[in-house]
């Protein structure tokens, strides 16, 4: 069974991918289709969805929630993808080095990783905002940093196990350089784990960005982010709950799509799990 055929048969992967495609399209194309998200009409605040000219209703200043949501999706995607790229690249590199070289290098890296891991995300984000100012950059750096150490810990553990396997011992005995062993022998073997992890950390990035925006760290007004929209809308929950629930539902769908993809990828790429599943299905 080749990979593509198995992917097509994976319902989680297919449904997650369809949802993700729709979301990405909304984030990429939506802002051009739905007009200026800052346009306000002070006479038309708190409109419910499906009101003429306001597909998803309007907020307190009469701004189109649909136009703001698609920009919020774009912001969320930019942050989530950025932090995941940072975390995967840097975290994998750190984990590979620490797990393979071991000794003092591993101890030092593990010390730093554990130190950072001990800080709650919100505190790291506040410290980042205090040092470089508010906005999306401190959010990306804070979430990226925390996710980096998370991935580094997992990769290190995987590499510690793999580095004693015969193929690595053989490569070492064959005189291959450390760099070659890391990139040609170990990296391909941890990639399935990294891919599954990265899908999980995209979801974490979406939630983290929304959470930090909810508490006022993150995108600065008038730039909308989904968490900020949920926060602003909660003042009007009994008047027009859609101002909160629409961005809330979008966050849910985004996280769901990424989680489905992650689960699908895990089923597809994890040989141990796949073997177990195939064995179970052949019975």
């Amino acid at each position, binding site marked *: 069974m080749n990979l593509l055929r198995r992917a097509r048969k994976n319902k989680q992967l297919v449904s997650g991918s369809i949802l993700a495609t729709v979301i990405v399209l909304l984030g990429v194309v939506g802002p051009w289709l739905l007009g200026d998200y800052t346009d*306000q009409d002070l006479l038309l605040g708190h409109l419910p969805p499906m009101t003429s000219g306001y597909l998803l209703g309007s907020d307190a200043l*009469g701004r189109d929630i649909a136009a703001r949501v698609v920009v919020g999706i774009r912001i969320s995607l930019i942050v989530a993808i950025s932090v995941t790229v940072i975390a995967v690249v840097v975290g994998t590199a750190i984990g590979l080095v620490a797990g393979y070289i071991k000794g003092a290098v591993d101890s030092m890296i593990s010390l730093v990783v554990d130190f950072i891991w001990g800080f709650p995300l919100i505190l790291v984000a506040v410290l980042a905002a205090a040092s470089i100012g*508010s906005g999306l950059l401190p959010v990306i750096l804070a979430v990226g940093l925390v996710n980096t150490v998370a991935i580094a810990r997992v990769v290190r553990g995987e590499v510690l196990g793999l580095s004693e396997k015969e193929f690595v011992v053989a490569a070492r005995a064959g005189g291959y350089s450390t760099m070659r062993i890391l990139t040609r022998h170990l990296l391909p073997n941890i990639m399935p784990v990294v891919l599954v992890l990265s899908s999980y950390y995209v979801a974490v990035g979406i939630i983290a960005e929304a959470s930090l925006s909810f508490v*006022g760290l993150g995108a*600065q007004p008038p730039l909308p982010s989904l968490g900020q929209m949920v926060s602003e809308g*909660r003042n009007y929950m009994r008047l027009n709950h859609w101002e909160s629930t629409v961005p809330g539902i979008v966050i849910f769908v985004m996280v769901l799509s990424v989680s489905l993809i992650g689960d699908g990828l895990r089923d597809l790429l994890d040989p141990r799990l796949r073997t177990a599943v195939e064995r179970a299905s052949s019975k």
Partner: protein
Amino acid sequence: MSNSWIEDQYGADVAQLAADYKSKKFGRRAFLGKLTAVGFSVGAAATILAACGSNSSDSGTADTTASGDTVATDSAPKVGGMLREGYPRDVSKHDPITTNWYDPAFSAIYETIVTDGLDGDTVPQFAAAYEVSADGLTYTFDIPEGRVSHSGGVMGANQVAELLQIIKDTSFIGGVSTVPMEGYSVEGNKVILKMKNAWLGALNPHKTGYWALANVDTWKAAGGSDPKSTYGTDTADGTGPFTHEEWVPGSHTLVKRWDAYPGSNTPYVTNTGAAYLDAVRWSVITEGGQRATMLENGELDTLLGPSYADLERLKSNSDLTVIQHPEWSGYQLSMNRDYPEFFGDKLTRQGLSHALNRQGMVDAILFGNGDVTYGPFPKTDRQYEPKVESYNQFDVALAKSNLAEAGWVAGSDGVLERDGVRFEFEYVVEDETTQKLVSEAVAQQFKEVGVIAKLRVVDRAVAFENQSGVGREAAPMALFFWLWPVPLDILVIFGSSETIPVPNFSHAVEPSIDAAITQWRLAGTPEAGIAASSNFQLEWADTLPYLPLMNQYATFVHHNYVKNWAPFVWNLYPLYNDVWLDQ
């Protein structure tokens, strides 16, 4: 406010009473007596009285709402229980001298030497009586014999005079707002305030929390003006009916009954002994919706400032009473003159002002629970000058023509430029729901005339730091909210060239405003005061040291079992000695 407004809010009988009072069929005290006799609390009665007297315009600010704040006058007060209030701001330290804001707890812990009467006149509070000399140069306050503070420290004339002198000389607000005052001295049990010249405004600051009477010995022992002082945080020593117990920023303030309280000298406080309540606790709940829900769920007994989105629902709840009246407050935008390329010329400032749809913002953000301001004062102030309304009206075409006349031309992206400078600046705003919405609305309206205001949302402390820098260290533009029972006294310090950079956040030097301030400081008669006040407002509306935006209505909500909790139009917060719980 009009008689029709009174009829709408309180019914035909009360409107008839008001009409009779206005036609002088009976006096103020008789009017108040008739209102309380039919079941109105002092707070509601004072609001009706203010509606009768503060503005004669029938078409004026009839958009205030209030519910009938009735009390069961036939019930005997019950002793005990803790009043739980929801408060919208973080708590300020309980030190009248060093705080830059005062909270409702000040009304429980402290007394002032005089306070506001129900119709905005001056009545004694700590003082047994006071008098003003015929030439207006001497104020004499009778200090009652044998009074002590919560700690047992003596609160005689010497202690009171010493404290008042320290406030005048050193406090955040004292120096500039008391220029016509010479100083305080003591004769027997009397505190004497000597004036440099007769001044109509002499008593006003004395009614505020910034002049609250703390025990001066305790204050000094705790550290005085030293930033490390523990006064107001660990301890506070006043003469009010409750003692300072807990002060936890971000969480709550707790005060407990002072059993030795001898009763108030304020005529409308009916309880002449210790308070009925065991304690009062103010919880910091910054989300308006959450405050309302907690009140409805019975987790709070009263609240200040519900979200206006919740107001109609709260009004329709038969278990609750909503009290609402005009507030002595305002939202204003500073324009830092140390950025002369943006705000140095009057025509540009006027252009920006004409770009703002103030009524739209009042309707959208305050749900109509406020008034637009074209000058510095709220409309309901007794000295409000209606001629300011000829300035700063919303007119986008005029805004654009003013800006064009000032030399601004649109660049390729539509943003205005002048002398190679793009009209784009940073605009700092505190992270608070209403202020953020106002700022987003303002920024968008500026954008429509080609001006880019880049919002930076920061917490309250950082916002103040950004507003109060020297020169270009201060933000080019910032929104701020002021709250003060006498607008002229506070706006003088925002507009005077003597107070740059703090609190003249705009760093504006306007000789015509300085001249109006001097005129006010020399005003010894009501006529002179009105003339000075009028000049001040007109010069402000014309030269625009700040962009006036709007003011909101003060709104209070309480469960009906809370009795005599009666904030009224002249006070920022209720007094607590009469309050009891009918549970």
